[in-house]
């Protein structure tokens, strides 16, 4: 490994100060970042360890407001009976992180901000994987696990297990930075980088994700992930849905795809279509079709369009308690 510095701040303010320096990177559970460093895919001057920072971990259910600290481990969240009872879809999303070791070490913030699994990126070809003359290695190569909604040259997929659900819930991210606290929709944490130098998240230097908050009352959510293996495996496609209101009619529907685009992909046409409609076999199928409108699959991932349709249909069915 290349040498790097290591800082262990005790407060959010100290952490933010340390992270403001160029080349600093926050270290949460370390389940992926350390591998990236060992493989020389990413380089850092200094790791800022968050484990000793006060106030970053914990789960609170206050009325219908669920607050989760960024350093809460996935297993702690999974074991929180009230949180799971209030939002059962969380259990599905967390159980999808299929190894107990990863759930024990991995954190909520780490899951949301983890780097893509794109095999070109992981082999050192960069996040956009462009050749010297600017051609996409992904488009010309093997893209079976890549985006069906590429954005520009960003063709990797957002790998977060929790993000689609939190985006569907319109959860907020709480971020601390040099200028203090700011809140933004979880959806706004993500972007598709336009150049090789850009990250896939919107956090500015010195900014630290400290937690997420979601109103879990008055809605029904579900997550459906398509996996090839039942054992440890990444989803090929994931869908999260949140239906507002009770009864057969959805007052409002939010449908979000994971593993489909460089960011959690809000399928707004599908959500708009379903909002105000009754959920039936026909309408959820139509929503699944609407969710893939505008998909631009590449040479090897047409099948993911069908997976997205199915994942949406099945997630909606589960949220509505229907047999699909």
């Amino acid at each position, binding site marked *: 490994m290349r040498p790097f510095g290591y800082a262990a701040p005790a407060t959010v303010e100290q952490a933010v100060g340390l992270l403001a320096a160029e080349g600093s990177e926050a270290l949460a559970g370390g389940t992926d970042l350390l591998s990236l460093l060992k493989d020389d895919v990413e380089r850092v001057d200094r790791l800022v360890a968050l484990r000793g920072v006060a106030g970053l971990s914990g789960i609170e259910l206050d009325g219908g407001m669920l607050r989760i600290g960024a350093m809460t481990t996935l297993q702690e969240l999974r074991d929180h009976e009230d949180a799971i009872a209030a939002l059962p879809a969380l259990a599905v999303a967390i159980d999808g992180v299929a190894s107990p070791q990863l759930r024990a070490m991995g954190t909520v913030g780490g899951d949301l901000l983890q780097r893509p699994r794109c095999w070109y990126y992981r082999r050192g070809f960069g996040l956009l994987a462009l*050749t010297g003359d600017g051609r996409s*290695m992904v488009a010309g*190569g093997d893209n*079976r696990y890549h985006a069906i909604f590429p954005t520009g040259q960003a063709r990797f997929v957002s790998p977060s297990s929790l993000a689609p659900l939190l985006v569907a819930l319109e959860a907020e991210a709480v971020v601390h930075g040099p200028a203090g606290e700011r809140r933004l929709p979880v959806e706004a944490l993500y972007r598709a980088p336009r150049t090789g130098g850009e990250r896939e998240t919107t956090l500015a230097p010195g900014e630290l994700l400290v937690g997420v908050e979601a109103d879990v009352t008055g809605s029904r959510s579900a997550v459906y992930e*398509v996996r090839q*293996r039942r054992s440890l495996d990444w989803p090929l496609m994931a869908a999260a849905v949140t239906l507002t209101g009770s009864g057969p009619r959805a007052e409002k529907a939010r449908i979000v795809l994971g593993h489909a685009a460089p960011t959690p992909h809000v399928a707004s046409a599908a959500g708009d279509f379903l909002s105000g409609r009754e959920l039936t076999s026909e309408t959820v199928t139509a929503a699944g079709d609407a969710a893939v409108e505008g998909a631009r699959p590449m040479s090897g991932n047409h099948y993911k369009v*069908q*997976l997205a349709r199915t994942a949406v249909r099945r997630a909606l069915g589960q949220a509505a308690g229907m047999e699909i």
Partner: protein
Amino acid sequence: MADYSWPEADRRAQIGARPARLDGAVKSTGFAKYPSDQNPNGLLAAKILTCPHAHARIVGIDTSAAEAMPGVRVVQVIQGEGSEIQWAGDEVAAVAAVTEDVARDALRAIRVDYEVLSHFVTEEDRDGAPGARPAGERAEGDPDAAFATAHRTVERTLGMPQMAHMCLEPHGQVCSWDGDELEVHASTQAVSTLAGQFATELGVPASQVRIRTEYMGGGFGSKFSPDRWGIVGAELARKAGAPVKLFLERDQEVTVAGSRPSAFARIRAAADEQGRLVAWDSDSWGSGGLPGTGQTPLPYVFSRLPNRRTRHTSVPTNLAGSRAWRAPNHPQACFLTMAVLDDLADELGLDPIDFLDRNLDLTGRPDTYREQLAIAAEMASWKERWQPRGREREGAIQRGLGVSVHTWGGRGHSSNCDVTVHPDGAVEARIGSQDIGTGTRTIVAQVLAETFGLELHQVRVSLGDNVYPQSGPSGGSSTVGGVTASTRRAAQDALREVLVHVAPRLAAEPEQLVAEGGRVFVDGDSSRGMSWREAAAQIGGAPISVQGRNPGPGRLISSGVGGVQIAEVEVDTDTGVVHVERMIAVQDCGLIINRRLAESQVYGGLIMGVGYALYEEWIPDPVSGRLLNADMEFYKLAGLVDVGSLEVHMMTGPGYDERGVIGLGEPPVISPGAAISNAVANAIGVRVPYLPLTPDRVLDALAGRGGPA
């Protein structure tokens, strides 16, 4: 005493029993020291720098910065300036350093300038392959005439890609020099033959090279030679004057240390109105990396099919050369053949088991297959549960059953075994074989214990060291036949010497005596006997030591086995995800020494088979020429929850036992790809032409039939 032979069924105490493997506890608790666990004093760690390009020429190489790094002891250039590299992952330089991390850092400090050349890695694209060459054409009978008059013909293009061995313990070794004497703790399948190969490369006499492999973590056909990293490891150790551990990193293990050749084919097969196979025409191709690949045995099992023509094209690619993979060429040939026959049965409107049964006279062992097909069908409740294609149920989830048959040789290899009986009754065997996970240590102990009438804990087996008598490499399912035959002969000879000493004390001839149940006594009159310990004491002060050999006199082994497997799958037709619900395996292997270990080999074959049927493949990148899944993240192996319920039936008893011991490691891995593919076709009504049966391929096949996607 009788000739060399196995005891009759009613006189077997150990043979055919189910003792647990002797080293199971030390392996599962971590006390077993594998070659990669060896950490002698002063050990250095070595790592290898590999070429990132699939085809390149080395223009320059500068190791000075690496050499200057603290903790770096030796830097060695493996392929220097001017070398042409033919695959990504080929070895360029090596470093020995005080820790693995320092060695890795030093690799990064080596500057190599490459002239990048054009590459070809897309093996299925025969027409685009620059080096494709004919590799065999055979014909028998008159296929054209037979096709012209046949009742039904099917034509399919099918294939399966290259895949990795993925040994859990990577290739590598620990090398220590003491003057001109080299000791190698190697993860190898060939303890007895490795020393000579090291010696030739290193310029020392083979008598000064010691190879030790007490345990090893998987080979599957990929660990028969020292390999370049073995020789480099020894050279680094010699230069450093310190022991050197060099085991491949996981990405190297996947990329260069073992792959199974691909096989693709356009096949036509035809049958007459009675469902009898009458014609075969196959145009096959495949790649085993740079060397290309030879012809797979088509048509498989039904090799006496009349009127057949086979052509093969070898497709070289810029990928590391393939290695023998558990039953070389057979899983490929089995899939290509059984899928076509299964489709032909469907075309004929026949139950595939009935169709196979009608054609068994075209195989080498019709009686065995007929019996096995009946047993497998019974286990699967095939008659009640099998339905022809096209009768799918409501909903997305479909179920199906598929069947396949396979064959293998498995004759025992050359083997020598020293058996020693001590005056205190202690019995030991020394054999230069290796236990590659199949249970060889336990098998040898059982043969010893059987012969001397002792319990397993009363005998000792030493193996995995080339100072012991030469015993063959563990390949071709040849180990069990080789080691049991040499051990049995040595043990029978040693016992005979003991009995010569004992006979006068019992007023009997040696030929009248038997050793059973911890005693030596006159056969038929157990009162005229003595304990084993007392008997051994009769030999005097010095132990008896005898060497047994295979081949040798007596009929202890033979070769040639058949097996039948049935797969039951569940297919989600909306996602293309296939899950294996159940695998049934019916297998013969002659006389079984250890039922538990025999079944364990079949379970292992089924698990590995589910892996290559559903998940495993090399994914070379057409753009960079590198493998994109040289890891355990996207190179997917079957997990326990993916393999379904596994049910094994071993053929034993009259008709099987008297054939003697036959190897078993390979046959059970041959059929799963074919059986699972046939089950998927049965479930969804259409053939998915390629393995592994990934969701994209399943959905494509469904789409071709007007399904989704």
